[in-house]
Every structure is written in C-alpha cells, then in structure tokens.
C-alpha cells in the first residue's frame, strides 16, 4: 500500500486562518491533498484557496485555470504570484448552510530537486447560484523539496473544514520507451 495518510486536520470552533502541514515526510514521490473547506469570508459564496509551500512568499507561483459556474466557462492565469490559487470552487459564508467545497491537489515529484508542478480539481455546491468548478495547472520555479504546506483563506476557514495529506510512492521499472 503506497498511498499513506500523513495527517488530517479538522478546523475547530472559531475557525482557523490556515491549515498547515509541517515536517512532511520525504518518503513518497507524490503528494495528494484532499479538502472539504468552507470559508468565513463574507465577500461572496466563492472564495479563494491559497496554497504556499516551505513558507516561500516570493513571486514564484503560477496558475493557469479553467472554470465553469453553470453559465459561463472561463480561463485565466495568475502568473508569478506569492501563492498558488484556485479562484472558484470554494464555499463562503454566504453559501447555503452546511455546504462545503471539495478540492484535490496532486503534487508530483515533491521531494525532487526539480521545479514543482501540480494539478488541481475544485468544486463547490451551493444549491443555488454562484457555485463553480475549477481545474488548474500549477507550477513553481522553486526546486527545493516540499517540506511544508499551508492552505490559506481570505479570512478564516470555518469549523469542520478538513484537509488530509497523503504521500504516494511510485514503483520502479515496468515501462519501455520508443
């Protein structure tokens, strides 16, 4: 079994400004993070997920996304940012009660010394308007192994928001090239 749960964080009463995974073991090759998130931001039912690794705050994160909200599809870029973003697919305080958004982030080769990439799926459910879904491609020019991750909202994450971090270990051999 090579998909290994590292940690699950559940936000308690009062909320939390970020969900942090620290001292990530370097025993896997890929990272998978699964979220069930709701924001306390009252700016709108769709909020941002912002992800930063190793505490790096420099403008090294780029996102290209494709999103849909039930009526319009759109694509855009956040280049050279201080976070990775997803821009839709997250429930906020004006969303229908008890609805949480689900997201998945896959970060291959996180322990390598190569520039980092990622794939993101995000979807919110609002039982009304202003829900959305997003897929995104992430890249960072940082080559350091990922040892910590922070999942940051515009304000606080709501109580009962959860995030789970898994490591996935690749096999060896078994492929041919031409």
């Amino acid at each position, binding site marked *: *079994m*090579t*998909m*290994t*749960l590292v940690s*699950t964080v559940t936000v308690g009463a009062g909320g939390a400004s970020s969900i942090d995974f620290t001292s990530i073991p370097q025993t896997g*090759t*890929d990272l*998978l993070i*699964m979220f069930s998130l709701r924001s306390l931001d009252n700016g709108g039912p769709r909020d941002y997920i912002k992800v930063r690794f190793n505490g790096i705050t420099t403008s090294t994160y*780029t*996102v*290209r*996304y*494709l*999103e*849909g909200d039930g009526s319009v*599809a*759109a*694509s*855009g*870029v956040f280049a050279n940012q201080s976070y990775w973003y997803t821009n839709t697919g997250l429930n906020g305080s004006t969303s229908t009660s008890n609805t949480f958004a689900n997201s998945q982030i*896959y970060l*291959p*080769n996180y322990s390598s010394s*190569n*520039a980092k*990439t*990622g*794939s993101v*799926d995000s979807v919110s459910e609002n039982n009304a308007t202003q829900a959305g879904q997003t*897929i*995104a*491609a*992430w*890249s960072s020019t940082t080559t350091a192994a990922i040892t910590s991750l922070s999942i940051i909202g515009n304000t606080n994450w709501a109580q009962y928001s959860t995030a*789970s971090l*898994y490591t*996935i*270990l*690749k*096999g*060896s*051999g*078994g*492929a*041919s*090239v*031409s």
Partner: protein
Amino acid sequence: MPTPTYTPLANLTLGSSAASVTFSSISQAYRDLVLVATPISTINDGYLALQFNGSSSNYSMVNMEGNGTSTYSYTYSQIWVTLNNQNMWTTPSTFLINVMDYKQTDKHKTALLKGGTASQSLGASVGRWADTTAITSVTLQATSATFAAGSTFALYGIAA
C-alpha cells in the same frame, strides 16, 4: 476520502528523449488504473495522447480546454485520447489519467485525462475506446513533439 489502494505497478524517468512510453503486461488484478505523468516537451508545443493495446482505432472523446484567455470544447473521433491544444511545454506539465474497468471484457473502455501546463494550456478529456478487449498495455505518446529527458511516468492499480 479515498481508499488507500494505490498500488504502484511501474515507473519511469526518461534519461533521454523519447517519442512514447509504454506500460505493458499490466497486471489484471485491479479494477481501475491511474497514470501520473509529468512530461516535458522538447518544444513549446506538444500533445499528450493515450492508446491502449497498441490500437490506433475506435477512440472518441469530448474535451474542455483553456489557455488562460479562451475556452474550448470539442468532440473527436481519433486514433487516441488526447487534449487538443498545446498541453505540453518545455516546462513540466502534470497529467492525471484514470482508466476505468480496464480488464472488463463486457465494456467499452473509458478514460478521463486531465492536466496541462501552467505555461500554456490545460484541460480535461473523457475518452471512449470502443473495444471490449482487456487492456494489457498503455502507451503515452508525445505528438507534435517528443518527451524530453526528466519526464516522469507512473502507473498504479486501484482495487475496487
């Protein structure tokens, strides 16, 4: 939360450029397959394509794509399952590919391919291979380009 059943079946990091990578003699002990690819294209334009059992017929798909400015959606009958629009670049891309019920001989095969590059384009395709043969090999093909050294490919089995 997912059931922790990713079983590693094969893995490859390219030491030199290659036109394709094939996972062959795939174990029939699982329900689904997951492929994780981080290809690097030798040029700033390329497509990642998927073929089963060496077949170049009976593929159809529908996709959605975005390049940071515009969005697209197409249907195709093709010789593979792919995205349409520059989803590989000279910087690494990330692709997650799910192949469902790959060993079933009473079903046409379906695959979900999603990913791309933050440098240029991304999207998702759902493809159908109109063949009931069990999948024993999967080929990842670089089209309009080749895979550069450092590209990585991994295959997992998912138990039901």
